[in-house]
């Protein structure tokens, strides 16, 4: 049995969430007694980058080198992956739950007649049928879900598995596909993306600020700490609503859901809608001058104190140890 992994890339490098998907597929293959883990990359990607999928656990990488696929046109990517899936004779498709990955997976579920589970948080339990644990209610609960179809698609959530880094370099094989023009019915005219920064949905450490910071002019403190930690910056909903920070930094129920190993919340009280966006974090640190802030109940570590006083000290103290 082969497992196909759809990998996404940004600026020519494979996304970490996609490498996690490769590691997930590798572990799943081990669980079912071996089998090929084939990764597929679309667009223009450096071949040495593609070979890195091998380190994460892929035995082979298929590379559809086609500049028409550089832009993430949902239908075109879905068509390409479906063609590869059939070519490989795969039975399972693994991909990362992401803006493009989820959109592609949904179309593929219908096309490949595959049962689809998204936000998968751990390897399937195959002891009685095929049971997959996924995150629901925005991280407030889990659902153990059976997949009843022969073909399966699992869209995995960040941190569902430890990234494997000790695999052998994979061979990269060029494949050309004929993708019908109808699949390019949507045209991407431009993109407006923060570059050179750590992207919030994929970050391992996130530093977020709330109204306690009193104004956008004070965000330098958040950015300084984030820089020292190699972290992404986020914010609460009120902060993005009043325009202190852009919408794509809004962490919460209706914003970005993050799953970092460390989430540092500064001057955020911890409304239930915000907590829903961060409850998949491994460790949470809360800094708030109000000892009654509900966020402390969801935190692992906390400091009751004024952000303006604590934050610069914390940044210096962290600088001293890393």
């Amino acid at each position, binding site marked *: 049995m082969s497992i196909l992994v759809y990998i996404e890339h940004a600026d020519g490098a494979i996304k970490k969430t996609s490498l996690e998907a490769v590691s997930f597929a590798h572990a799943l293959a081990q669980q079912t007694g071996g089998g090929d883990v084939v990764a597929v990359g679309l667009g223009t990607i450096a071949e040495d980058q593609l070979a890195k999928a091998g380190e994460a656990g892929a035995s082979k990488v298929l590379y559809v080198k086609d500049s028409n696929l550089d832009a993430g046109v949902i239908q075109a990517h879905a068509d390409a992956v479906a063609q590869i899936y059939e070519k490989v004779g795969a039975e399972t498709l693994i991909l990362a739950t992401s803006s493009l990955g989820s959109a592609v997976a949904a179309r593929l579920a219908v096309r490949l007649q595959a049962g689809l589970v998204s*936000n998968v948080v751990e390897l399937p339990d195959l002891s009685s049928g095929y049971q997959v644990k996924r995150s629901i209610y925005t991280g407030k609960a889990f659902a153990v879900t*059976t997949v009843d179809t022969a073909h399966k698609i699992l869209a995995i959530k960040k941190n569902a598995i430890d990234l494997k880094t000790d695999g052998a370099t994979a061979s990269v094989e060029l494949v050309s596909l004929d993708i019908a023009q109808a699949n390019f019915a949507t045209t991407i005219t431009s993109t407006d993306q923060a570059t050179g920064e750590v992207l919030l949905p994929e970050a391992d450490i996130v530093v977020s600020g709330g109204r306690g910071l009193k104004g956008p002019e004070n965000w330098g403190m958040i950015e300084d700490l984030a820089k020292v930690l190699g972290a992404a910056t986020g914010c609460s909903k009120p902060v993005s609503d009043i325009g202190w920070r852009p919408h794509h930094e809004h962490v919460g129920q209706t914003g970005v859901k993050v799953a970092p190993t460390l989430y540092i919340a500064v001057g955020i009280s911890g409304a239930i809608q915000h907590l829903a966006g961060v409850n998949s974090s491994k460790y949470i640190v809360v800094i708030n001058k109000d000892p009654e802030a509900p966020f402390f109940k969801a935190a692992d570590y906390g400091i*009751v104190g004024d952000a303006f006083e604590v934050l610069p000290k914390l940044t210096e103290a962290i600088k001293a140890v890393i």
Partner: protein
Amino acid sequence: MKILVCITHVPDTTSKIQFTDNNTKFDKNGVQFIIGPYDDYALARAVELKEQLGASLTVLNVGEADTEPTLRKALAIGADDAIRINAFPKDSLFVASEIAAIAKENNYDLILMGRESIDFNGGMVHGMVGQLLGMPSVSPVMKLDIEGDTVKMAREIEGGKEYLEAKLPLIAGCQEPIAEWKIPNMRGIMSARTKPLNVIEPSQNQSATAVVEFKLPPAKGAVKLVDKDNVEELVKLLKNDAKVL
């Protein structure tokens, strides 16, 4: 122009999530149900487009009879008529194939819904409907304008957005800031009572997955507080105990 907005009937975002019947059913006790927040954005944008372009606006939900107040609320906000597919929404495929069946009969130009429901968070229904109907599907859409038969959109991607164009017909999964939520006014609420709400039995009955058990995350231990004048202690904990630095 004909617009269809598909909505979910979900627990209010402040609800405490609990399960009953041996963790196989959601506990509705004391829970207030609302239009899915993302669906509410889709509906608000659809009402704006209806006013701007003179469209008809149908709202649809796949759900049992207890979801009707949610559909009535959508009618009060500005939909012209409502359809309830009378079935428990088993999974994404189930919902998508029922929506696609209705859409095939009615030839909507634009189908909007939220990027995902806030109960199961799948975010899959719009893409599935798109594939079932052979139509483009775009999600998550944060801006949508129609000029002639061209739809101009902004879609959220990790760390930014991309701008897209497509021709109608089209399906979009929506999120903020596509429009401001609309609160129904008294006239809307009064007229919603008499607007048509058609109950249709499911015709496809397809599903591919099933939930066997719900689980709650383990309770979080008590927070470890560190004195504000001793931030070095926090750094030590993060480095040595949590091992995240």
